[in-house]
Every structure is written in C-alpha cells, then in structure tokens.
C-alpha cells in the first residue's frame, strides 16, 4: 500500500534512486553532449551569432524537456484511468503506465541535458 522508499543504506531507497538516476542521467548525458556539439557546429557552419544559436538550441532542449515532463506526469496522472479504460473497453494496445513513464523520463532527461549543455558551452564562449 505504501510505496514510499525507506531510508536504509543499500536498502530499497538506494536501488530505487540508482535506477532512476541511471535512466534519466544517461539520456541527459546524451542530450548534453549533443547540445555542446550542436552549438559548436552551428557556430562554425552558419553565420549566426552565439546568442541566436544558443537561443535555438536551448529552446529545442526545452521543447523536449517540457514534452517529456508533461508526458511523464500525464502518464502518472491518467495512467490507471487509461489502463482500466483499456481493460474494460477492449482497446488493448498493451499500453502501460510504466513503459510510458520510462520513455517520457528519457525524452525529458534528454531535453534537460540539452538545456544544461547549452548553458555550459555558451557561458564558456560568451566572453
């Protein structure tokens, strides 16, 4: 009934945290690397200045982040409703709240990583 993680070293909490950090972190790392590369490449290839490039890249990251966040919370929020509606109304698409949350966490993490990456690379190049 109570799914709150308990604090015990090496207990369920740590593996609980580790799983999630790994899931979001790997996606964020990918997003961050891609963002840094993207900003540098765009600066070299296009005539646009840093402000324009970082705005575009940051917004793109924010788009993924916002979408992932919305999708993640939507899955949690409507998860049981959708799963049950499917159970009763024959719309079996084997949708599961768990899968959906995981996918959304990846997308959101990727976007967040991208945003952080843009901030990092732009602040270094800003001067």
């Amino acid at each position, binding site marked *: 009934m109570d799914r709150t993680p308990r604090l015990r070293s090496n207990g369920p909490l740590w593996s609980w945290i580790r799983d999630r950090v790994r899931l979001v972190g790997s996606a964020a790392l990918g997003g961050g690397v891609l963002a840094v590369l993207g900003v540098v490449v765009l600066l070299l290839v296009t005539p646009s200045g840093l402000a324009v490039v970082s705005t575009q890249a940051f917004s793109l990251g924010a788009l993924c982040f916002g*979408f992932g966040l919305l999708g993640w919370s939507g899955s949690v929020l409507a998860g049981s409703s959708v799963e049950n509606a499917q159970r009763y109304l*024959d719309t079996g*698409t084997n949708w599961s709240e768990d899968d959906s949350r995981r996918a959304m966490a*990846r*997308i959101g993490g990727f976007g967040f990583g991208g945003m952080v990456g843009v901030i990092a690379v732009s602040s270094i190049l800003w001067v």
Partner: protein
Amino acid sequence: MSTHTHANGRKRGIRGLLARIRDSQFLSELASNRLAIVGLLIIATIAGLAIYARVFIGGLPPLTDGQYEAITLSNLSGNSDMAEAPPSLRYPFGLDGQARSIFPRVMYGAWLALKWGTVTVGASTVLGVGLGILAAYYGDIVDNVIMRTMDVLLAFPSLLLALALVAIFGTGLQNAVIALVLVYTPRFARVVRGAALKVMEDEYIDATVALGATDFRVLVRHVIPNCLAPVTVQSTLNFGLAIIDLAALSFLGFGAEAGTPSWGWMLSNGVEYGLHSAWWWAFFPGLFLALTVLGFNLLGDGMRDALDPRMRDAID
C-alpha cells in the same frame, strides 16, 4: 478466421487481392449491416453531389475559390432587398445576403469538405502507417519513443491541440490541415502498430525471414497488406471527425478564407449575421455537414463490427 488470414497472406499481386475480396468475411458481414449500407448510400450521394458541383458548376478547368464565387451569383445582385431571399423554387436554399444562391454553394462545399478531408486523413494515414510500422518492426527504444510521443499527443483533445498549433503556425486553411494531420496521425500509428504486431506474431513471418527475405520485403509484402483492413476502418471513422474539425476551424475563422463556399465558413457567416433574420444561412450548410459525418460514422461503425476480432482490439 485466423487460418484464413494465413492462407491469404501468402498470395501475391492483384490476383491475390481479388481472391481476398471475393471470399472476404469482412465484406459479406459489412453488406449485411443495414446501418452501414445507409451510411454508404449517404456518402455516395454526397460524393455524387460534390463531383457534380465540381464538374458542372465549377467547370472542368480548375477554378480558384474566388472565381467560383462569381458563378453562383444570382442575377439579383443589384436588388438589395432580394439579396437574402428565403428558400424558393428558384433558389432552393435561399440567397446568402450577397445575392449568391446557397444551394450550389452547399454542393460545392461538399466537394471542399471531401477534398480536404481526404488530404487530412490521407496524410495522417501515410504518416501513421510509417510510424506505426517502424515502431512495431524495430521495437524497443524506437517503439517506446515513437509510441509514447504519440500517446501524449493523443491525450490532448483534438480541437484544442489543433487550435494551439494554429496559434503557433498561423491561421489559414493549409495550416489548419497541417495541424489536424499532426492531431490525427497518432490514431493511425497506434492502430497500425497493434495490427502489425499481431501479424508479426504469426509464424509465417519468421519463416519468410528465415528464408532470407529482407526487412523491406517483409514489410511491404506481408505486414502492410495485413494492416489494410484496420487502417481502412480507422480512416473511415476519422474521416467524419476530420471533416467536423476542419469545419470547426473554419467556423472559428482559422481555416478556409472568408467567402469560400466551405460549410464551416458558411455556418460562421450564418451565425454571425443571419441568426435573427435568415435561418437558412446556417441551416443548410450545417445539415449537409451533419449528414456527411453521420454517413461516415454509420459506415465506420459497421466496418468496425465486421472486422476480424483480432484486429478490432486495436481500434477504439
């Protein structure tokens, strides 16, 4: 039923397709559904009117919507009292306030509705089939990212999402259609993915792969043909919705240009200016809109009931 699909799955080319149609349980079951037949008749009538209007009123060389306007002008344009005459023998649906006869305009509206409905549903079907099959065939991360994105889009109410997209892209018929394609694509992707997954569970696909068929070949020869039935049903069910949503966007002023004989715009004109004085402005375009949508809903409902239960699950 399931062995049935297997047997036909191996047949190739046009002959195979014809054989499928001949002994299709789907079609015979559909033909025995009276409501579906009524729906089909309604659609056929509307389509007939649309083509008639396009060819004989619009003229065969393509007309722009603006040129069309001149043709429906009655010769009463000089007489301002008569410019909004009520329905009569001469002008069955009355005149629209600018001395244009509403009857041919409504018929031409059928052409526009079916045309843009086909564009919307067609584009979403193609996109949805592509995405759904990619998701089903490659599975894992591809599947997760594609389908979950589709799920989030599905969770948004269609008209509100379309409105938000129109707010971003700007208004106009083309943008309205683009917005609706984005709104409708997920529905097809979901159905196709479900159907494709079920096809791929069949052993003969494994056998074909073992015999050295390429991915592409398996998809084109086996997976796509078997998804056709559920996709057709989904297209029919969504055709009516697409026509309503397009008309709604035009009604709100974000779709068809002012003055075009689209049902949505005629309705908006009728509500804005004719509500108190000229009921026929809003009544006839809306009546045809509702009839068309009803036709598609009746047919789509019947088709869903006639569908192989294995495939029916994927459609809601």
